[in-house]
């Protein structure tokens, strides 16, 4: 057809249990702060199959990324070695629909901080 839907243009949600389990696995259930981590993502995905995201958390040992609306929420974990000049990385991810992307950093002192960003996946069309 003329209008085929590659991804759902409606908000999607993974099973909360899956998201919670992925978080718990990474944090061990520790409290998460909100300062010291920046997640940058486009407000609207140009293509749900390849959405650029950027995470930055100065002083992080590792950053885990979750797509909270994907059938399988885990996206990846970046561990920073001694020669990482910044606790920063940029990659491209798949999103099954409009949802929050979440990044959680494990800081070198063992504490955790998190940030999330809503990314909209839309059918598009209709320019001004």
């Amino acid at each position: 057809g003329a209008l085929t839907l590659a991804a759902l243009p409606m908000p999607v949600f993974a099973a909360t249990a899956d998201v919670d389990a992925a978080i718990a696995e990474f944090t061990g259930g520790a409290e998460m702060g909100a300062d010291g981590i920046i997640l940058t993502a486009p407000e609207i995905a140009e293509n749900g199959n390849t959405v650029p995201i950027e995470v930055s958390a100065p002083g992080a040992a590792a950053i885990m990324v979750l797509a909270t609306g994907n059938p399988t929420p885990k996206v990846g974990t970046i561990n920073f070695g001694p020669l990482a000049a910044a606790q920063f990385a940029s990659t491209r991810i798949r999103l099954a629909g409009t949802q929050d992307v979440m990044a959680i950093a494990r800081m070198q002192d063992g504490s955790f901080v998190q940030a999330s960003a809503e990314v909209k996946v839309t059918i598009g069309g209709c320019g001004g």
Partner: protein
Amino acid sequence: GNWSRLSAQQSITQDDLLSFDTTGNVSLIHITDIHAQLVPVWFREPQINLGVGDAAGQPPHLTGADFLQRYGIEPNSSAQYALSYPDFAALAGEYGRMGGVDRIATVVNAIRADRPDALLLDGGDTWQGSLTALRTDGQDMVNVFNALRPDAMTAHWEFTLGIERVMDIVENHLEFPLLGANIFDVEWDEPAFEPFKMFERGGVQVAVIGQAFPYMPIANPGYMFPDLSFGVREARMAEVVQQARDAGAEAVVVLSHNGFDVDRKMAANVPGIDVILTGHTHDALPEPLLVGKTHLIASGSHGKFVSRLDLDVRDGEVKSVAHKLIPIFADVIAPDPQMSALVEEQRAPFADDLAEVLGKTDSLLYRRGNFNGTWDDLICQALLEEREADIALSPGFRWGASVLPGQDITREDLMNATAMSYPEAYRTEMTGEMLHTILEDVADNLFHPDPYYQQGGDMVRVGGMGYRIDIGKPQGSRITEMTVLTTGEAIDPARSYAVAGWASVNPEVEGPPIWDVVEAYIKREGTVSVAPNTSVVVDGA
């Protein structure tokens, strides 16, 4: 109404329109969204233009009486005609067409006579929207704008000529830069166009940053420019503003195609921008809108207006601004003869086609407005009948000139409402559920409370079906009471309907170009009449 005021037309003079107390040391001239209109047109401003979130009830989301009151515009004045919709057809007869690049040239030349180094900046949507631009792949507009000598432009619909043609124009034809700080290559995520250009004007450094339409591959076919990525990229804008300041900019101007509400948010979030020359949403505002220290300028569309902005830049900052939105009344401003000749040269090869009469209209044909316009009602009717569909969809484009009641509809008029590079009129089956999903998606792209999530044009226009919309609700629950108009039956989520539409952003769409469909319909009807559309009920406004 006070119709005696209409005689005021006699008293409007070119000198009045151009008068300006030159001030400061830098002049900016802004034109945007001309949509390839080389000659004067009719263009009715929207009746419904709803703002949501922080923009609710704020300019530019004021229309009719609210707009006239806010800006102190007299009833039935030339300003009402130019800036608003009430009594449009009657006032059009009185005040005449607006725009025309030869009249714009006269205004630009007059400003340059005053301030020879004035910066002329084009906000884009320049190379698309007419028969001649379509047939020449934008070359007519490139030729004419080269003669107008802008200092820079940015872009949106330009990219629907396809990236090869855009690069051909930028590299081989365009005599000024196309700026786009937010255009990146997809593979390595590196800037693909110049982000800004520094100009020395009146002894000060003025940085002009380009911001192309952020939602390019979403609102228009991404396959036409597959290697480019856009986006609002607020952090990138902040970085480029800083780069410009570090390079010595004393005034920072963003030549933007974000759309007004996106610019309002960007102005609030990104420090250091003195002026945003807004575009894309086709708003014409008689005064700048101040957000923090940033002046937002809205210069309309279709060549109806040129903005002049004089800046007093001293001690590394903008001390004051003086502004005028200059209406281009085609019967008042004398055309520039050289530009008239150049415009004529572009149109001559197509003169017969442009002038061909297809039929006549009893009704005012216009497009602009959030939900429907008579042009799209006509297009939807043509789609329903010519393609034997249950439901028709026509995209909520903001471009498209008007035709007055009683006038002939020429091929030029039809192409002014349809000319673009992916015009295929498709016919397909869709379930009621899918139709609902599409309406919800498009509505969210217009009424999401955060402007950075608004990618769209106006609401998709629908033929054969009515619905109720609550613009204040979240996505998924705005659209209710979808109804088949002919039977009054509710749309069945599970049933399949024959849907005809045009301008799909998907590749390999099949069907005749939309102008052929509408032409056949107009010719068959002879004279078209479009009844007022009451099929969309709006709540939450």
